[in-house]
C-alpha cells in the first residue's frame, strides 16, 4: 500500500512538473507569436515589391527600405568576412597550439567576459579607434569591423566547442601517419569542425543584425537615398572596394526613424520593416540548421 501511494504521488509530481515546463515554454512562445502577429497585422499591407526597391521618403507610401537592406547585407558581409578568419584562427590556436598556463587561462577568462560587454561599449571603442585614429569614416567598413569585434567572442567560443568535439583519435591517427600539426589541423580537424563553426557564426550574425546602438555611436545615418558603389568595375582589377568606404544605414535604424515619426502611416512602415528584419534573421538561422545537417551527413568516422 505504502509503495502504491508513493508511486501515485511521484506520478502526480511528475505530471505537475511536465505541465509547469510546458507553461514556461508557452510564455516565451506565445509572447513571440503575439509580437509577430501584431507586427504582421500592422505591416503586412506594406510588403510590396516597391517597398523593397524604394528609398526612404517623406511620403510614407513612397518610402521603402532599399538602402536599409542593402546596408544591412553589406555590413553583415564585412562582419562575417572579418570575424571568421580571426575567430577561427584564435580558436585553433587556443585549442591545438596554446600551452596550458596562466596566460592562456587569462585569455580564456577575457574572452568569456568580452561576450558580456554591452554593445554600446564596442561602439565607443570603434568610434575612438576606427573613426578617429584610423580615419575609416562613418562607412560600411567601420560598421562591419565594429560588429565583427562585437561577435568575435561568440565566434571564438563556438569554434572552440566545434574543434573540441573532433575526437582525439583522429588527431592521433594523423600524427601516427607522420602529419605535422598544421597538416592535422588543415586536413582533419578544420573540415570536421566546419559545420559547428558555421553554425556558431550564423547565430552570432543574427545577433549582430539587430544591433543599432554601436552603429549609431559610430554615426550611422538615417536618410540615404543612394546605394553604395558597385563591387565591380570595367577595368583591371575588376573588383572595386570603393563601397567599403560609402556611408550606410541599416534596418534597425530605419525602423527606429519611422517609429519616431508623427504620422501613423510611418509606424506601419516600421512594422513592415520589422517583418523583413525578422524574415532575414529567420532565413539566417534556417541556413545554419541546413549547414549543420549537411556537414553532419558528410562526416564519416
Amino acid at each position, binding site marked *: 500500500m505504502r509503495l502504491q501511494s508513493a508511486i501515485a504521488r511521484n506520478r502526480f509530481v511528475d505530471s505537475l512538473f511536465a505541465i509547469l515546463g510546458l507553461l514556461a515554454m508557452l510564455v516565451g512562445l506565445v509572447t513571440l507569436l503575439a509580437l509577430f502577429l501584431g507586427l504582421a497585422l500592422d505591416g503586412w499591407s506594406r510588403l510590396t515589391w516597391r517597398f523593397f526597391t524604394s*528609398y*526612404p*521618403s*517623406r511620403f510614407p507610401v513612397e518610402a521603402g527600405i532599399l538602402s536599409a537592406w542593402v546596408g544591412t547585407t553589406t555590413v553583415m558581409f564585412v562582419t562575417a568576412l572579418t570575424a571568421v*578568419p580571426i575567430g577561427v584562427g584564435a580558436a585553433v590556436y587556443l585549442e591545438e597550439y596554446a600551452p596550458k598556463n596562466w596566460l592562456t587561462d587569462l585569455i580564456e577568462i577575457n574572452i568569456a567576459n568580452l561576450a558580456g560587454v554591452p554593445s554600446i561599449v564596442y561602439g565607443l571603442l570603434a568610434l575612438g579607434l576606427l573613426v578617429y585614429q584610423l580615419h575609416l569614416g562613418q562607412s560600411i567598413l567601420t560598421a562591419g569591423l565594429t560588429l565583427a569585434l562585437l561577435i568575435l567572442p561568440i565566434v571564438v567560443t563556438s569554434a572552440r566547442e566545434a574543434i573540441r568535439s573532433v575526437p582525439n583519435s583522429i588527431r592521433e591517427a594523423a600524427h601516427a601517419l607522420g602529419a605535422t600539426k598544421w597538416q592535422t589541423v*588543415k*586536413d*582533419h580537424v*578544420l*573540415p*570536421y569542425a*566546419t559545420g559547428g563553426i558555421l553554425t556558431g557564426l550564423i547565430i552570432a550574425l543574427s545577433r549582430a543584425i539587430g544591433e543599432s546602438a554601436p552603429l549609431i555611436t559610430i*554615426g*550611422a*545615418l*538615417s*536618410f*540615404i*537615398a*543612394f546605394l553604395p*558603389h558597385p563591387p565591380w568595375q570595367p577595368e583591371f*582589377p575588376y*573588383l*572595386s*572596394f*570603393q563601397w*567599403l*568606404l560609402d*556611408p550606410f544605414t541599416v534596418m534597425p535604424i530605419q525602423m527606429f*526613424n519611422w*517609429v*519616431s*515619426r*508623427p*504620422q*501613423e502611416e510611418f509606424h506601419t512602415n516600421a512594422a513592415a520593416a520589422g517583418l523583413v528584419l525578422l524574415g532575414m534573421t529567420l532565413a539566417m538561422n534556417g541556413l545554419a540548421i541546413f549547414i549543420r545537417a549537411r*556537414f553532419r551527413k*558528410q562526416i*564519416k568516422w
Partner: protein
Amino acid sequence: MIDARPMLRTIAAFLLLALFSFPRLLDAEPAALIKIDGSSTVFPITEAVAEEFQKANRGAVRVTVGISGTGGGFKKFCRGDTDIQDASRPISAEEIEACRKTGVQYLELPIAFDALTIAVSQQNTWADSITVSELKTIWEPSAQGRITKWIQVRSPWPDAPLKLFGAGSDSGTFDYFTEAITGKAKASRGDYTASEDDNTLVQGIANEKHALGYIPFAYFEPNKRKLKALAVDGGKGPVLPSRETVENGTYQPLSRPVFIYVNRHAAERPEVREFVEFYLTQGATLIEQVKYVPLPAQTYRLTMEHFRQGKLGTVFHGSPAVGLQIDELLRREAKP
C-alpha cells in the same frame, strides 16, 4: 573526409585581389557627397529637401542626413566632419568656442518655424486657453510636488489631478520650452512624464483626461483628432498655434525659428552651394508638406542674400533669444 583546400584557395585569391585594389581605394575620386547631421526636429525638413534635391540632380550628388541631436551634431560639425548642421536652437557659447578652436567658420541660416503646442486631451472640457504665467506656475522647479491639481492653476478648473507630459532633458525642445516659460534654460520641475520620443507624449496625453503637455506643432497637427491645443496668452490675449499666428509672430513666446549651419569651406563647393540655394528657394513648399511653418518669402530672400555675401557667424552670441521676430534677427549683427 572533406577537402577544405578549394575554400582556402578562394579566400587567398580574394585577399590577394583586395590587396591589389587597396591603393585604388585610397586614391579614388570622392563622389560629390554632402554630409548633414544634427537635430531630430529639423530632420524631416532636411530629409524632404535632400530627397527632392537628389531627384532634381538625378543622383549626381549624394546627400546623407543623420540624427545626432543638435548637441551631438554640433560636436561633429565643429570637428569639420559634416558640411551642414541641422539645429533646433542657435549655436551655444561652448559650441562657438569649440568651432573657434578648430577654425571651423560657418553661416547661420534660419529655415523654418517650429511652434511648441500646449496639448490636452480631447476629453478636457474645462480648459481652452492658458497664460504664460500659469504655465510658469505649473512648470517652474518650485512647483515640484506642490502644484498637483488643476484647481491650483486657475480656480474654476476642476479639483482633479494634473498629469504632466513633456520633453526629456536631452532634447532641444526642452531647452527652448524651459527658457521661454520659466526664464532659464533647463530649469523645470522633474516630476512629470518625460520622453525624447514625441509619439510617447502624444499617446500619453490622448489617453489621459487630466493630462497637459507640450509637443512640437508637427506632432500635434497629424494627431488633431486625439488632442486639443490650448491657446497661449503671452499678454496680448490667447492665441492658438497655427500657420498664420506663427508666421505673423502673434503665437509667442512658444514659436521659434530652426536653423541650418553651413561650414564655410563646404559652402565653396558647388554642390553644397546648389543644395543650400535649393533649400532656400524650394524649401517653403516642402516645409509645409512636413507640417512645419515656412518663413515669410522676403525672409528667405534676405537669408539667400546673406548666404551669397558669405555672412559668417551667429547673431545669437551663444544664448537663445525668446520671443524675437524673425526679421529682427536677420537685421542683427553677426559675430563669429
